[in-house]
């Protein structure tokens, strides 16, 4: 028997409000060790607040919260020792060089000199900052600052890493570099809690995605599960002859047909059961299908359907 994977982060009934504005309205989160979890939502949905609470920066009003097996309110220092945080606005020391920033982190993690130096050198290498290592961070480009910021969060080899909108404001190339780095980190066994307003980013990276809107989780699951939650999915069928196309168009819930290409598009949510029904109906009418492809709606559709707001691209 396989035991369920241990949880890196669990939150039950997490609540936070500022004055009478409720920012997080009792949300539940479960993040398994060694996975990427994306908290997806528009600006102001409460994503950053969630990260600030889970990384011990601010206190929750209510909720059972555990990170790395430690209770957040009772053992904040044990949580802090296990996590690395990278903020939305790069939290680097502008007056210090890249190397000094990393050595500062190493000192605050109480690593000995040799180990601090070794980790700093390794991270500069990994994040392509060797040439800029001795320049003040104030002179860095946006992408470089973000990489330094992430590198600083990795000093001391944390098991859980919080990334608050790690690619917001980056150009497409820097974004892809950042994605690659994040994938490598997870391959190394760490858990990543990511917030983003980019659907593509969540789709590309995350094992599980939670959709946050106005302080509430409106959906949670894998990217595919979320896509199946909204209507609008369809199946494309290609036939060998016009008779088959005609017959199929009559017996199925047809959305559109293309007589030249012998293509038929029918309404279907893509579940195994619905697909079986569809094929049974075609069999019953002795219609042969050459090709079949399932089109689930993309996350944009999900986002729009569940939050009622356009996502940012």
């Amino acid at each position, binding site marked *: 028997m396989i035991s369920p994977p241990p949880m890196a982060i669990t939150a039950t009934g997490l609540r936070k409000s*500022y004055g009478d504005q409720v920012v997080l309205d009792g949300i539940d989160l479960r993040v398994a060790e060694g996975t990427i979890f994306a908290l997806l939502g528009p600006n102001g949905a409460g994503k950053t607040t969630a990260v*600030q609470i889970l*990384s*011990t*920066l*601010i*206190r929750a009003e209510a909720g059972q919260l555990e990170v790395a097996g430690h209770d957040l309110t009772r053992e904040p*220092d*044990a949580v*802090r*020792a296990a*996590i690395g*945080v990278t*903020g939305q*606005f*790069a*939290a*680097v*020391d*502008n*007056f*210090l060089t890249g190397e*000094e920033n990393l050595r*500062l*982190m190493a*000192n*605050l*993690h*109480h690593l000995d000199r040799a180990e601090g130096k070794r980790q700093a050198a390794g991270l500069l290498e990994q994040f392509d900052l060797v040439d800029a290592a001795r320049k*003040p961070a104030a002179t860095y480009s946006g992408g470089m600052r973000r990489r330094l910021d992430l590198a*600083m*969060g990795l000093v001391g080899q944390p098991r859980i890493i919080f990334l608050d909108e790690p690619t917001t404001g980056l150009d497409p190339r820097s974004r892809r570099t950042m994605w690659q780095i994040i994938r490598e980190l997870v391959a190394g066994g760490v858990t990543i809690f990511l917030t983003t307003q980019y659907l593509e980013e969540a789709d590309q990276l995350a094992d599980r995605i939670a959709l946050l809107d106005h302080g509430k989780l409106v959906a949670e699951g894998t990217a595919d599960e979320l896509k199946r939650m909204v209507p609008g999915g369809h199946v494309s069928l290609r036939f060998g002859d016009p008779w088959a196309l005609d017959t199929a168009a009559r017996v199925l819930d047809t959305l559109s047909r293309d007589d030249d290409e012998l293509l038929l598009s029918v309404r279907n949510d893509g579940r195994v059961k619905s697909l079986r029904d569809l094929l049974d109906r075609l069999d019953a009418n002795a219609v042969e299908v050459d090709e079949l492809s399932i089109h689930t709606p993309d996350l944009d559709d999900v986002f729009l359907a569940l939050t009622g707001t356009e996502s940012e691209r």
Partner: protein
Amino acid sequence: MSTLRYAVSDSSTMLRRQFLHMLRYPSMSLFIVGIPIVFLLLFVYVFGGTLGNGIGGTGDGRAAYVNYVTPGVVLLTVVGAATATAVSVAMDMTEGIIARFRTMAIFRPSILTGHVIGSMVTTLLGMALVIGVALLIGFRPTANVVEWFAVAGVLTLLVLAVTWLSVALGLAAKGAESASNMPMPLMLLPFLGSGFVPTESMPTWLRWFAEYQPFTPIIETLRGLLMGTPIGDSAWQTVGWCVGGTVVCFFWSRSLFNKRSDR
């Protein structure tokens, strides 16, 4: 794990960070020392001849005035230092780096103690430099070794109090710009006391303020130690003001710091 070891190790890490900042951004440190030196030269060479005669010195007015004005000018140093500290605390608070520190398992007060110790060291060095310039242009103190140590002690107490005050102002400020203006009223205190002219020469209402504000007893104590003038109650008032100010500003800073951490 030993909290004390972390306290020492993290505080010295933060202190190193402050010193690196000062090296990278030396204009702030130059500002700390520059202002009092300019005032010293201005008051001694421009106003010194007349003022020296006015305060009842015998012989060369200018030479007498250097001896009179140096303690007040040394105190001006804390104003520049307070500004620098408030600005650097405010800048730290507005940039994300403090948030990062807070998510780490470190000795939290080290974030502030790094600022306080770093700022105290530079301010005291700045004061030593100002006294050095004063000696070069004719300041002739009569203090013996014990009195010099007492001078260092008084200045340290004062700098401690003013540094915690400026940390609090930096934490209370919305940003670096407003932080840089907040300690400015301090600039006036040596003037509205016995720093530049004796309080007896002022109109009654101003004299009342001048005699009861904290800088006057501090200046009188320093002057007594350096030049042998009578000190009287000033010594106790000095210790009272400095220790009291330090305690109040320390708790004020701590509460501001904790409040800003939970927004």
